[in-house]
């Protein structure tokens, strides 16, 4: 049954993708991209990847769409038609598709328990997580301890994106500009969205915190939590206006969160080094290695959450607070 549902979702996914490429209206394309992400998240969920589904829904369908819309507001939302060149592109990608489909015939089919993927190191993780770290969520265990170095790298990718957007948009627009008044008032004059939104924001933030600190036991963790909390604040910015949101959490605080989060993560790694272990070897943090691991994971997840939340918000503000060309 669930496989048939999967079939249905995948077909929808393909249709959405084609519709995105075909439409000339960028606004429509962005909204369809959001739907695409949501479908993708549903797909991930039925493929047993709860953590990934949560991330894709929060990041892909939520934050990305908002950033896209902010960028569209600063540019142009119609695509101009072009002629020619299409067959070259068709040819290139056609060859690519055939190549991949050719490769699929030797791949293990979906769900095959004997596939090599499920043989070598994956069972080790599932087996040893209880022994070494003793938290229920294996994904969190791998993410923050077994492959914690990757995650550190990822936090720095987010950091790079954040300083990149601040750097690139740090130049004031070249021509004379004016601010759009609508932008600063948000939806304050619209009673219904405001009331409902205000009602929801505390719960969104609460859910974010739950995801943050429940990450060891269920789906979730720093990334998802950071993205969800960021969504809550973005909702606030949409309702109350950009400047209100900035007054609540100023830019400096956001940048501080990014820097602090990244340094917190790295600092734990360095602390491990000083206490006699390898970089990011949390076992040395406490007398009991298992407790040390859990402590380390708790701290670095907090660092990840801070960094991601701060970075996404800083990026959002960099776009949203930019003046529109008159």
């Amino acid at each position, binding site marked *: 049954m669930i496989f048939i549902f999967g079939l249905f979702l995948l077909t929808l996914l393909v249709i959405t993708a084609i519709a995105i490429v075909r439409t000339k209206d960028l606004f429509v394309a962005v909204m369809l991209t959001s739907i695409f992400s949501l479908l993708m998240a549903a797909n991930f969920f039925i493929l047993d990847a709860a953590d990934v589904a949560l991330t894709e829904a929060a990041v892909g369908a939520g934050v990305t769409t908002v950033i896209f819309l902010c960028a569209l507001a600063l540019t142009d939302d119609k695509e101009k038609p072009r002629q020619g060149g299409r067959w070259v592109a068709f040819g290139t990608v056609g060859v690519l598709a055939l190549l991949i489909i050719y490769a699929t015939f030797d791949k293990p089919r979906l769900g095959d328990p004997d596939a090599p993927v499920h043989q070598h190191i994956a069972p080790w993780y599932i087996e040893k997580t209880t022994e070494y770290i003793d938290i229920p969520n294996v994904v969190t265990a791998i993410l923050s301890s077994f492959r914690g170095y990757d995650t550190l790298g990822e936090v720095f990718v987010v950091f790079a994106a954040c300083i990149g957007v601040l750097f690139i948009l740090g130049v004031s627009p070249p021509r004379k500009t004016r601010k759009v008044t609508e932008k600063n008032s948000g*939806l304050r004059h*619209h009673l*219904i*969205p405001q009331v*409902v*939104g205000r*009602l*929801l924001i505390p*719960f969104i933030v609460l859910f974010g915190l739950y995801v943050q600190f429940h990450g060891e036991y269920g789906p979730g963790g720093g990334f998802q939590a950071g993205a969800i909390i960021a969504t809550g604040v973005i909702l606030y910015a949409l309702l109350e206006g950009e400047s209100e949101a900035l007054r609540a959490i100023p830019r400096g605080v956001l940048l501080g969160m990014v820097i602090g989060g990244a340094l917190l993560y790295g600092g734990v790694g360095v602390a491990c080094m000083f206490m006699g272990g390898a970089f990011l070897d949390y076992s040395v943090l406490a007398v009991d290695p298992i407790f040390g691991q859990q402590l380390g994971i708790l701290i670095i997840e907090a660092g990840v959450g801070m960094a991601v939340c701060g970075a996404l918000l800083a990026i959002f503000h960099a776009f949203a607070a930019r003046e529109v060309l008159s």
Partner: protein
Amino acid sequence: MIDIALDILSWILLVLGGACVLIGGIGGLRLPNFYTRIHAASLTDTMATILIFVGMMLQAGLTLATLKLFAIMLFLLLTGPTATYALANAALLSGLKPDAGTASDKPKENTPE
């Protein structure tokens, strides 16, 4: 006995909810202009949501899942109509006139007279 009754009831609700979604979808495709279309679509947000979620809660019985389902239903009931409102409001602000007589909303009608 009561189990079977609950089961039947929940399936009736689920099927009704599914029908509402279907009607909403058809309405979204077939109705003539923007406002009537979001009217149809809002059926999915409200009626269908209630029916399907109550049906699923009956399936789940008195467990944690029911509580979660209730929370999700509440969330959807709050956000769905708000989104519809915001959509209609945005359309109105951008100059699309609600007019029962018009057959469709081709661009020429979008300009206020």
